[in-house]
């Protein structure tokens, strides 16, 4: 779809995004690793509660067991929804929009990001008491133009492995980044 942005606004957005694009592009393919620490039952249940999800397989041991789960089940989206597994930077180092360094340490200053979706493969068990290693890699970044102006489209791949080294979850997540005015 064609756009009708004023020329000066178009140039301003293009400059701001172009600078970030070049920085981010240089990070394509560079892995960032982190560990989740031990996942607690409370973490999984809080995620369910915050999602307004009272499926008994997350709360009722007996029902989970009779449903074939080895312990309470984990909400499937828990691992791929957590943005940061570390303590995070001090508040003074957060950006004006609250974002810290959660997104694989990418150089995204000056760009507001919104997640737009994921593609996930669930490959192994996730339960309380387990911990995982996570490798995040920026797969691709593009500059695009739409009805509301120019934006970056970032695709980040993440792989979660259990302590035995088995992959339990693969996720590709897309983010849209727009220049702050």
């Amino acid at each position: 779809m064609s756009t009708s942005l004023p020329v000066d606004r178009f140039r301003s957005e293009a400059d701001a995004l172009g600078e970030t694009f070049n920085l981010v592009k240089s990070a394509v393919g560079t892995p960032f690793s982190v560990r989740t620490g031990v996942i607690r039952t409370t973490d999984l249940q809080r995620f369910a509660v915050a999602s307004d999800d009272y499926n008994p397989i997350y709360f009722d041991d007996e029902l989970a067991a009779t449903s074939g789960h080895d312990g309470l089940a984990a909400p499937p989206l828990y691992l791929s929804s957590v943005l940061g597994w570390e303590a995070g930077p001090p508040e003074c180092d957060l950006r004006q929009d609250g974002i810290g360094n959660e997104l694989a340490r990418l150089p995204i200053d000056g760009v507001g990001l919104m997640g737009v979706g994921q593609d996930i493969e669930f490959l192994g068990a996730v339960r309380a008491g387990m911990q995982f290693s996570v490798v995040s890699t920026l797969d691709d970044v593009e500059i695009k133009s739409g009805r509301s102006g120019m934006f970056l489209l970032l695709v980040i791949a993440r792989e979660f492995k259990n302590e035995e080294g088995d992959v339990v979850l693969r996720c590709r997540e897309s983010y849209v980044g727009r220049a702050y005015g």
Partner: protein
Amino acid sequence: MIPPITKVPSAVGLFRFSAITWNPHLIHYNRDVAMSEGHENIVVHSHLHGSYLLQVLMAWAGPRARITKFGWQNKRAVLVGEQVTCSGTVVDISDAGTVECKVEEHNQAGELCANGWATVLLPRRSS
């Protein structure tokens, strides 16, 4: 047809979701910042759309089913207090017991807010 569910995300619910996912983005719990970024109110998280869509599938499939693949795309922002309805359809059934499904989330105006797809492994009847 997969039975629909409705959700009305609240401010405290969105704050709790920010907390448990360690998502500090202010647009999810600070109205002024959300408005400064062009929204009319605080914004539902991308991943919460995904969670809502998964919930409609899991409620239908039952506790013995397993989701093996799932994906979704957000199409339109949902703001705090807006009611959304998630529904789904079965698009294919394999002999191995896997079911391919599509799911959608609409706001009260009927606008598509997110859509998704999933592969669900259903339990055998004898199990």
